[in-house]
């Protein structure tokens, strides 16, 4: 079974994001970029399925500028077999990403596409589900456990009330939640080996997909600031403030 893993390069999760002074977006110049944490979990899961003998090949795909090669090399160092970069200078919306991934799926014919449930920049949580609908596939979103047997993936999902288990017919879409696995660190020999693994580049224009934006971002602003709080010294003082000042208990 071939697995395709989609990955996105985003501002690193530990960076405190700053809104640009002209309110057109957030500062990205000289900001540390990394693989989206949910995508790392997706890569790890694909590699584990290969190590278990369930998957035969793991292909990492990313859409973006030349720097996305770095994230793909990371995926290769973590255990992906080869990588595909669909080159695009423009930031694509999730619908466009899903359409591009669909063309890659049609070419590569994987039986499973693993994606992060959301990227920590746009926080959209859309791409996997959109790809599922465009392909006419079933989906196991927000997965915390995946088991493959008999042409099906049994997926345990983190839902608002607890956990739900679905049996999804392959080929299928799986999107990862935080507790699916703990991604490994790439070892130095594997990082060196990754440099020699195949990384193909495709120009987005050659795919014949309409990726024109459907939305316009009018402004990006700072969230309203909270008024400065105070420190209390004792439990009694805290209870008094909650009762008589904030009036919430």
């Amino acid at each position, binding site marked *: 079974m071939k697995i395709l893993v989609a990955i996105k390069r985003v501002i690193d999760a530990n960076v*405190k*994001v700053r*809104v640009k002074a002209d309110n057109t977006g*957030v500062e990205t110049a000289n900001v540390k970029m990394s693989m989206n944490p*949910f995508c790392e979990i997706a890569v790890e899961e694909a590699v584990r399925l290969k190590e278990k003998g369930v998957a035969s090949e793991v292909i990492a795909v990313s859409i973006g500028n030349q720097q996305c090669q770095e994230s793909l090399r990371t995926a290769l160092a973590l255990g992906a077999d080869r990588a595909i970069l669909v080159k695009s200078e423009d930031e694509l*919306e*999730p*619908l466009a990403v*899903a359409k591009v991934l669909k063309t890659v799926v049609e070419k590569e014919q994987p039986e499973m596409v693993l994606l992060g449930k959301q990227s*920590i*920049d746009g*926080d*959209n*949580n*859309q791409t*996997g*589900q*959109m790809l*599922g*609908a*465009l392909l*006419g*596939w*079933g*989906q196991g*979103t927000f997965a915390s456990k995946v088991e493959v047997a008999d042409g099906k993936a049994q997926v345990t999902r*983190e*839902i*608002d009330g*607890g*956990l*739900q*288990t679905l*049996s999804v*017919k392959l080929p299928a879409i799986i999107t990862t939640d*935080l*507790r699916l696995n703990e991604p490994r660190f790439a070892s130095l020999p594997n990082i060196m080996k990754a440099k020699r693994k195949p990384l193909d580049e495709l120009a987005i224009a050659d795919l014949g997909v309409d990726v024109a*934006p*459907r*939305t*316009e*971002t*009018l*402004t*990006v*602003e*700072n*969230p309203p600031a*909270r*008024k400065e*709080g105070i*420190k*209390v010294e004792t*439990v009694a003082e*805290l*209870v008094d403030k*909650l009762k008589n000042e*904030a009036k*919430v*208990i």
Partner: protein
Amino acid sequence: MATLIIAEHNNSELQPATFNTIAAAKHLDGDTVVLVAGHDCKSVADEAAKAEGVDKVLLAEAEHYAHLLAEDLDKLVVEQAESFTHILAPATTFGKNIAPRIAALLDVQQISDIIAIESDDTFKRPVYAGNAIATVKSNDGKKVITVRATAFDALSHEGGSASVESIGTTEHGALVDYVGEELTESERPELTSAKVIVSGGRGMGNGENFAMLEQLADKLGAAVGASRAAVDAGFVPNDYQVGQTGKIVAPELYIAVGISGAIQHLAGMKDSKVIVAINKDEEAPIFQVADYGLVADLFKVVPELIESL
């Protein structure tokens, strides 16, 4: 102009976020229609018909809709879509699972997790874990939207008298079979709609110590939440998690105990009206958003707090 709301329910009653989604729809022009798709769920349709702000209820009943699977409901919604300019779902795990499928089938770029409606095509939504607020204009003919429940106060559950119309159903796609669920049973209020939340982090040390927070919660009629660190460590189940990728909450009072305050956690709770932080590390970032901070050993002061309430 008309808005279709995809109701989240358990075949016996509506989930609270559906009412917040109805409230959001009232900021849009035209009628508000609620789609109740499920199995043996007429009582849910009747409940929706009574809700303030609802003009009409569509009821689609079929055995394969029982678990509200996205692969079956998406086609049903798409069949109904022609009559509507806006399709809304709550930004819960239910809505997040299904709405993008509907958007893709309609060739629409969805707008996720909106917190304000500026006009029929312009919406505000948080990005980067709530560290920035984007105002986004959709140029698609139809809008597919998920709504952050805490940003819209629910209208009354009573007082409406909408009609209920049964509609045709779609066939079972058979892509997915439901296996089972393990839902957390609790007598306490539901986290996302609770007025008071007591939340614990890694500082709690282990799962047994959460009993202390439960006692405090019971004194306050509160729900119990947790940070990702506490869930990852196995102290409490996943559905306790408050944060960027867990639950978004905005209670009247949020008491963070032994939580350092990573930006991903703050994203889920910083719209709470009053925030209390109890942590022995006075440098903990949680104090930057707290209205009242108590630098102390939680194992000493939480029992004191329980005692004094």
